[in-house]
């Protein structure tokens, strides 16, 4: 996982509430048993003129030349609601997005972001609206997300502090993989399970039990 410290990049405003994961990556675009090959299907329902087509819908934000190469997405409340499909984050990341700024995120989507090195930045609705407005008016729609300093800044100097779970921040800054860290605790987990099995035997070996 690529570490994220700070990034100044083109930011695209998609100021809609409740952008769901079906919209981010429609199920029909999840064609292979893989985490890759999804960028093309990102926002397919909005980005292309018709289902299955690859003809750009000219007015969709990502198709506007000024937002070409965007790496930061600015959106509305409850971003990433709906299906838990991690493909939504894989599609965003593969397209090039490294951070999403929104007033709130769906909890599963937020976890998926952190697992893939995409920074979920929570700012209040007013700040998000100001940023989106400034991006629309700017000659160059640039935004800086500084994870180390926990700030978001516009080129005009306005900046906002954001809060983020410190464990998530640490993992994102270092690009750390959680499984490898947890496996260092494998003995502790195994010991806990032995104690637990004495207390709650019915939790263990359910398949063997069902077979009698």
């Amino acid at each position: 996982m690529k570490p994220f410290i700070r990034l100044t990049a083109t930011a695209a405003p998609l100021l809609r509430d409740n952008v769901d994961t079906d919209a981010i990556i429609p199920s029909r675009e999840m064609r292979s048993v893989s985490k890759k090959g999804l960028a093309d299907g990102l926002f397919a329902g909005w980005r292309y003129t018709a289902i299955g087509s690859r003809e750009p819908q000219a007015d969709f934000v990502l198709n506007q030349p000024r937002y070409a190469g965007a790496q930061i997405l600015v959106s509305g409340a409850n971003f990433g609601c709906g299906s838990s499909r991690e493909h939504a984050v894989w599609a965003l990341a593969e397209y090039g997005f490294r951070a999403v700024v929104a007033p709130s995120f769906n909890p599963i989507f937020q976890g998926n972001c952190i697992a893939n090195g995409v920074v979920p930045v929570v700012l209040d609705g007013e700040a998000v609206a100001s940023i989106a407005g400034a991006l629309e008016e700017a000659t160059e729609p640039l935004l800086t997300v500084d994870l180390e300093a926990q700030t978001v800044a516009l080129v005009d100097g306005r900046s906002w502090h954001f809060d983020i779970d410190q464990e998530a921040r640490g993992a994102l800054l270092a690009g750390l993989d959680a499984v490898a860290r947890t496996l260092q605790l494998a003995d502790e987990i195994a010991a806990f399970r032995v104690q637990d099995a004495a207390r709650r035997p019915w939790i263990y070996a359910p398949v063997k039990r069902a077979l009698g």
Partner: protein
Amino acid sequence: MSRTIFDKIWDAHRVTQTPGGLDLILIDRVLLHERTGGVALRGLQERGLPVFAPDQAFAVMDHIIDTRPGRTDRTLMPTGTDFILATREAAGKAGIRLFDLDDPQQGIVHVMSPELGIVLPGATLVCPDSHTCSQGALGALAWGIGSTEAEHALATSTLRVRRPPRMQVRIDGELAPGVTAKDLALALLGRFGVGGGAGHVVEYAGSAVRALEVEARLTLCNMGTEFAAFTAIVAPDEKVLDFLKGRPFAPSGADWDAAAKEWLSLASDADAEFEVERLFDAREVAPMITWGTSPQQVVPIDGAVPAVGEGQGTAESQRRALDYMGLEPGARLTDLPIGAAFIGSCTNSRISDLRRAAALLRGRHVAPGVKAICVPGSTQVKRQAEAEGLHEVFQAAGFEWRESGCSMCFFAGGESFGPQERVVSSTNRNFESRQGPGTRTHLASPETVAASALAGHIADPRQVAAR
């Protein structure tokens, strides 16, 4: 110190705390399906990691398998077969019990898991599927995760989780006749909005919840994810014990006795504290129907599409929804003609759902031009329904009778209801193009779906006499 049911389960599963303040939580059950589980298993295998406790992991085919009679590995979704084959292969390699598409215990993961006693009260259960919260209905702490977290849970039997805040939604009063758990779930979304759960563990409590049967509680908890909750949970009681006793994967003998005693002690202490407490009166709930493209855009069945600026969501999102749904403010929902009716999904496809819908359909026929489909939630539900003759009621009424699976709850590139087609659906999501490109979904209870199919327009199920 007083604790909620969530605190009791959480504390019993906390292996340790990380320096960053995350809890390492023991995971008792990992469930996988072919849509997002195959990729997790494959990811793990690519890293050369074994499954830590394969006996506590289960896989099932439900999401993209065909639901038409005589199904095979072929799917209507292009490339769908790849997901089936990959999951079968990966589950075999991992030594995980797979409920394949021809298994008599196969079903939608959130239907078959309770049905088989895989989920148990007081257990932690995760699945890379947002509707995993359904299974909180049995008093388990069950939540949806992504595929990477599923890899973590499989590889370590744990997850690293920040302890979520708690919310109690206390629902007192009795639901009126003809009003169901689905209507209650939709009414809660209408009142508190799709952000209302705000990442909390939401405990549904109160006399109206106690009065719900276990299958109805599964419907209520199912839409916890639509509420943006971390998960939903209901304290286990005698109804849950009666439901689970004798299920194939549930404990028996002395284990059952010990388990049952512990399960009944899980209920939140009387003076336990929640970060947020909400009250709701079940008597206010009517049969509900969504009008828009978010489950919070919902009104009573005899209501009208609200004016822009009234109800949940921004004016802009309401305008988008009106445009997508082909509606004007003030339109009465019961005036809307429908082209299709769908009964199925992890929300409403259990035997009690089918019985209630069949009671309205018995001896009647759907209106001309309405495509009507019933997809039982599991193979066991299907067989039970057939033993009771319900399939004949559905078929005589003009419904297709399918094999179990997620089916047309979502469009994956295969079957669709068609653009601008108006569908009344017992599912959980009315997002743009969820059930097909341009398809207009109205969410409701199975009764409302049945009544609407008969009438050819959205209809109040209370005006159809049960038979």
